């Protein structure tokens, strides 16, 4: 589904991503792991079009998306959860979510004359996702009033509601309590059962190993290992680079 080919990105003298190549399979959860500063989030930024690579190509379903803008990439079907919450802080949870499913909100006249309504279908979709992630009671709250964990779940719900073929989740379990983390494992496995494709960055190894079908290990911008969770656990190079043993 997603193919990364010889991707390189330098910031001044630092090579953040160094000739990186890998593929993501449809319907699977793939985890991108590696030490801090290894280039994982830079790869996410390159895929979602926030920064452009110095060289290399990115294909989504055989379509080269390297020159596409962030909104075009989103509209092609890549939906991303950021490492830090990036919610619309002065809007309610519900309003944040409606924005993810409304693709006619830039049509001025349709909006002025009330032709772009929030249908029952859209309301139902928002209600369901809020129930699924367990924050239904917050739906009318302004995002600024939420706890960190609630913000994380709201953003996860928004990312999932945004029409997509590929979900990119940057540390979804970061900063949330163990109970919610456990629920999130089941939630992600549920998404996979429904055929969703997920690319995940996560530092919590038990969490990663319990959801991922495939793991790609990045160190200093390079792919140093790739395989099933059990293979990665035994890989000496990975243990040395990532776990320091």
């Amino acid at each position: 589904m997603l193919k990364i080919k010889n991707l390189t990105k330098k910031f001044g003298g630092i090579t953040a991503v160094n000739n990186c190549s890998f593929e993501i399979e449809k319907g699977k959860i793939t985890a991108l792991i590696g030490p801090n500063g290894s280039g994982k989030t830079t790869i996410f930024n390159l895929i979602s079009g926030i920064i452009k690579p110095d060289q290399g190509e990115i294909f989504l379903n055989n379509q080269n998306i390297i020159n596409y803008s962030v909104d075009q990439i989103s509209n092609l079907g890549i939906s991303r959860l950021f490492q830090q919450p990036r919610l619309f802080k002065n809007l309610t949870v519900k309003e944040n979510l409606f924005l993810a499913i409304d693709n006619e909100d830039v049509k001025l006249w349709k909006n002025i004359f009330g032709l772009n309504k929030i249908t029952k279908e859209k309301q139902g979709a928002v209600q369901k996702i809020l129930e699924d992630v367990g924050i239904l009671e917050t739906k009318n709250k302004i995002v600024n009033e939420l706890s960190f964990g609630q913000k994380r779940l709201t953003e996860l719900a928004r990312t999932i509601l945004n029409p997509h073929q590929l979900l990119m989740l940057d540390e979804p379990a970061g900063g949330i309590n163990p109970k919610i983390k456990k629920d999130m494992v089941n939630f992600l496995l549920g998404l996979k059962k429904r055929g969703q494709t997920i690319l995940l960055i996560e530092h919590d190894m038990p969490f990663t190993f319990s959801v991922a079908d495939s793991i790609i290990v990045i160190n200093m911008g390079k792919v140093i290992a790739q395989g099933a969770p059990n293979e990665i656990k035994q890989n000496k190079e990975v243990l040395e680079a990532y776990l320091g043993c």
Partner: protein
Amino acid sequence: MIDAYFIHLLILIGIYLILAISLQLSLGYSGLLNLGHIAFFGIGAYVSAILSSSGVPFLISILVAGIISGFFGWLLSLPTSRLKGDYFALTTLGFSFVVYAIFLNWIEITKGPFGLPGIPRPNIFGIDFSSNTSFLILVIILVLISYFFIHRICNSQFGKALEATRDDELAAKSLGKHTFKLKSISLAVSAFFAGIAGCLFASYITFIDPSSFTFINLIPILLIVIIGGLASLRGTILATIIIVLLPEPLRFIGLPSSILGPIRQIVFALMLILIIYFKPRGFFGKVDLE
């Protein structure tokens, strides 16, 4: 006498209200600190004054004034599309200086510092609006129309997408929003209504010159938006009434006009300091002033 003075104040409140709610759309809802807003007001005033003085019917003058101001709003969005915060503010401020310089120096059209006198009062389908009472009715109608459209925009999903862009443009883009288009439309619509307000101003005062469209004239409008609260239309209404009426008692103290102007500015500045200190979000603001 009191009635005439009261009507005059209501007309001013109406014109300022259109100007302020249109600035609220770009500043409060879209997060664009647009210091060029006064230029759109001026463009609307000059376009309608020139057209009306040449015998063009008022309805066409006002529409053309709005459309040309809106066009310049859209035009301004092109070079500023990647700018944010202070940089956006400075660029739009520069735009207002350029427009002012054009008003001042394009003498063949604008008559420069001498201004354009004798702008006719509106006449729509034979209905004469030359008296202040009838002009007030026209202002009320245009305030209602402007409020209706801006309120509909702000409360629609389009308005929510604008607010999303204001809060986090990258996150809005990541949801597939064409944020440049959203901001361009917002600036164009905001400028359109500023142009309508400019047209009303020109036909009410019946004389315009460049001094009415300098940055200093934008300050009370900015003050209205900040005091009323960002992203709050009802706050804007309340603040417009207060800001227009607040300096009025000064007229009756008997101060010379050379002192009256600076005192008015001091009153505005004090009001701004007090509001920011005691009520940082203004009367009904939904957004922090950042």
